């Protein structure tokens, strides 16, 4: 019997560490005083690193992996596919991917690549759809397959479709181009599954996701009045990314009913969290904010409240009309920092309608677009007389103590009037 190679041993070790990391985050949530069994579904789904094969088996649909929010989930669903977000918040797996990757790489994508390596043997993915948001996502596939990985050699990478993202979303040209991109995506997927996308299926999916959006809106409202902590919200959103929409919807509706019967708990120090995504099990910043006695009443993270940007109004229910509406939702309404025309991003803060202690801007080291945009957000926050703090970090817990000190100082300093 051959000895396992160093790489294989490392992979097996990492798998164990990753399982522990997920379990630790889930356990922390279970220990909280606001835990209730109604959260169990979300902990079960969010609390482990699912492989594509497992997700496919659980949902009964072929899996399409995707990065970022701009790939319309309704299209995947309507074509009988299960969307699975490649984004990962696991610190352990990112260590596995460190070799051969740029030193200052976005931790989320490094983790995603690591997760792919861990799951490589078991992956059963129909296709991979990558919206071309930042440089890291554009180069994701190249980085993923270029790794010196003996496991990688045994598995074939799924076919990749780059969903080209026009970086001007308020121009006629940009909107038209993105609609065309969606049709190209449909063509690509139709070719893969061997059948056409039907209008009725798309309409059904649009209505289903609209229902899900309505539930998400209810959860956001519950969050505003102190009944749903940010860490729970992260688990709920993570579950959405890894399970079937129908099952998630049922569980989320039950949760809404439960929370609506809880007492409103207005938070004394409500903060607005924005910047780079926070993905389960990476709850480091959320835990530290809580420890600093602040409450994240709102955020505009792309794996959280902005999971589906905006609601979608549909008048024209032809395929063309539905695609136009989806393009509006996933492109025009998206506030990803990779867009050139993002002037109204700060309006998300104003729209919260709560007195805010301040804005916490989260930057993952290497996440350049959010790093760049933090300057604009800081200036706007200053103009609006809202305290602002920029936290630059990564997935590893080493800097937790330093961050906590800064957050406590931020929480305790009297900044005067705020929004």
């Amino acid at each position, binding site marked *: 019997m051959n000895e396992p190679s160093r790489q294989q041993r490392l992979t097996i070790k990492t798998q164990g560490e990753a399982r522990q990391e997920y379990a630790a985050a889930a356990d922390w949530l279970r220990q909280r005083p606001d835990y209730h069994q109604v959260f169990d579904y979300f902990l079960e789904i969010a609390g482990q690193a699912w492989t594509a094969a497992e997700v496919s088996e659980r949902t009964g649909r072929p899996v399409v992996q995707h990065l970022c929010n701009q790939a319309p989930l309704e299209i995947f669903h309507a074509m009988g596919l299960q969307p699975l977000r490649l984004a990962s918040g696991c610190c352990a797996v990112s260590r596995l991917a460190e070799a051969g990757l740029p030193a200052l790489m976005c931790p989320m994508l490094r983790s995603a690549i690591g997760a792919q390596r861990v799951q490589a043997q078991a992956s059963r993915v129909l296709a991979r759809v990558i919206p071309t948001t930042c440089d890291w996502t554009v180069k994701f596939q190249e980085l993923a397959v270029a790794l010196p990985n003996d496991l990688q050699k045994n598995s074939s990478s799924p076919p990749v479709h780059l969903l080209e993202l026009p970086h001007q979303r308020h121009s006629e040209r940009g909107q038209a181009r993105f*609609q*065309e991109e969606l*049709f190209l995506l449909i063509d690509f997927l139709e070719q893969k599954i061997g059948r056409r996308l039907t209008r009725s299926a798309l309409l059904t999916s649009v209505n289903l996701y609209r229902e899900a959006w309505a539930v998400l809106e209810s959860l956001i409202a519950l969050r505003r009045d102190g009944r749903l902590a940010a860490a729970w919200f992260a688990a709920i959103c993570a579950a959405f990314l890894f399970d079937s929409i129908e099952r998630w919807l049922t569980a989320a509706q039950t949760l809404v009913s439960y929370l609506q019967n809880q007492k409103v708990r207005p938070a004394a120090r409500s903060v607005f969290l924005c910047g780079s995504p926070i993905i389960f099990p990476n709850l480091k910043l959320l835990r530290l904010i809580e420890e600093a006695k602040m409450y994240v009443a709102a955020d505009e993270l792309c794996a959280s409240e902005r999971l589906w940007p905006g609601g979608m109004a549909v008048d024209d229910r032809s*395929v*063309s009309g539905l*695609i136009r509406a989806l393009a509006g939702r996933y492109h025009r309404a998206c506030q990803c920092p990779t867009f050139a025309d993002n002037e109204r991003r700060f309006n998300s803060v104003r729209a919260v309608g709560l007195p805010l202690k301040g804005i916490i801007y989260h930057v993952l080291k290497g996440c350049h677009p959010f790093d760049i945009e933090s300057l604009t957000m800081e200036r706007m926050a200053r103009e609006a007389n809202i305290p602002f703090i920029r936290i630059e970090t990564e997935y590893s817990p080493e800097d937790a103590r330093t961050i906590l000190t800064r957050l406590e100082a931020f929480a305790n300093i009297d900044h005067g009037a705020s929004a």
Partner: protein
Amino acid sequence: MKCFFPLPRLLLAAIAILPPVCADAQALGASVLGIPALVIHNGGHEVFSDGTLLARYRLSFDGENPNGRCQDIQAFWRPGSAFQPGRRWLPLPIRCDSQNCEAEIHMGGIVFLTLLAQARCAGIFYQAQTIDTLHARNFAPGGSWAAAGGEPASVIPSLELIPAPAHYYPQTGMTFSFRYPKAESNLEITSNDVAGIIDAGGTGSNGVAMKSGDFSFTLSHDPALNRQGFEATSERIIVVRERAVGAHTGQVSAFTLNVHRSRYAFLRPESGMALFVAVAAVSVALVISLKKQSWRR
């Protein structure tokens, strides 16, 4: 027969949607009355700044001023409606000089009226009638209308127009029915309108004698009138002569109709609908062809 709008018709004929439109277009001759008659001519309407309206009427006898040639010239009017003409004939002052014999009605509101004039010329009794609709611009009746409560005169029209709602707006192509109460009289009827006059027996034509007292008169279309605006009118006069028999000297009655061009006779609904469908089809084709992407997109 010359068509009066050759170019458009030619264009439409090319796509075969325009049926012949000149069938009724007969040139009306000038006044071809063979019988001297007393006739009321419409002298026009004038609106004043208070909204009241002055309608002028002029009398002619055998195409000339009756003043000096006729005696006992009188005029009357009766306001009413096209459904039900008024019963009371009211005296209407008539002013004759060396140039003209004229009467005026100055009134407010909207009224349908019948006008009657009579005179004795060269020993023969003549009567003239006309109908008119006056649209004053105020809403309160006034002027002659206010004086309508005066003493009615005893007048017996020799020729009666059978009332019909359409008389509010007389048009070419419309049929007017008349009754000459002395049905046993030997009548001779003529008109400046070349259209046929049909007696109750179903026969007759312009300028022929008829024994029947009831007859109808279909006004012909007039290309010249058509070319004018919709407000333009053409004067059609129908003359009925009752021949002298024995001691009876006979009499002549004239009825003037100022008619507009027909509103409906020249409408071609089939052509319009064909054009509608054709344009709609072309437009649909245009929309589809202008769509740059596939229909699904």
